[in-house]
């Protein structure tokens, strides 16, 4: 029996954040708490944005935050942080931070594909932007770890 990818704990809604680093730490907290990642992984994600720019902002308001698989990652994990106010990520406004921690190059691909297909649907995307935790968790209920 596998558990659902998103739940009450790893989906967080906030009003805003000091900056994108602050938002990223908050977004990563559930994964740190459940031991899926170490704080090193968060530092790696920050370093990646500083080095490679904000290309992980995949569409308006949505950022797929991640770093190299396996480094600072104990197990596959994803967490979601939605900010009511847009947060600047090196020039791009972001409201949805999806933190992804992968152990290797392949084991997360199915979950990621499912999550992204949901995000690509404009109706579902709006549900996420509406920032209602219950509705978001329910929408992702079909996606297992």
């Amino acid at each position, binding site marked *: 029996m596998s558990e659902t990818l998103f739940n009450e704990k790893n989906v967080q809604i906030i009003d805003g954040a000091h900056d994108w680093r602050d938002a990223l730490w908050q977004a990563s907290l559930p994964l740190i708490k459940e031991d899926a990642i170490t704080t090193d992984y968060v530092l790696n994600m920050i370093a990646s944005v500083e080095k490679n*720019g904000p*290309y*992980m902002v*995949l*569409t308006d308001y949505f950022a797929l935050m*991640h770093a190299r*698989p396996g480094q600072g990652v104990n197990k596959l994990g994803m967490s979601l942080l939605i900010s009511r106010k847009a947060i600047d990520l090196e020039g791009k406004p972001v409201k949805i931070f999806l933190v992804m921690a*992968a152990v290797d190059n392949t084991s997360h691909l199915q979950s990621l594909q499912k999550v992204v297909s949901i995000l690509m649907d404009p109706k579902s995307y709006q549900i996420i932007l509406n920032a209602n935790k219950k509705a978001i968790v329910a929408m992702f209920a079909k996606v297992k770890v």
Partner: protein
Amino acid sequence: MKILAVCGFGVGSSMVLKMTLEKVVMELGLNADVKNTDIASAKAEEADVYFTSAELKPDIESSTSKPVYAIKRYMDKNEVLQAMNDFLAHRGEK
């Protein structure tokens, strides 16, 4: 035709770009193979065309003579479609 979607680590953003590219390939009815990879591997892998971010574009261009297109929003099908049409229109001109 071989298409490479490239990001820093080859496991997240480029995966999504690959999904968008596959939609475009299907819509245009192209006979193409789309793969995603990280920047280091991309520089050593031959493809007919590369899609990546503006930040990584110069790095790939330094190691290939094939066209490299920068995509701002990896999930934006229209932007990717436009870049693909641009590539198809200019293919073979060099």
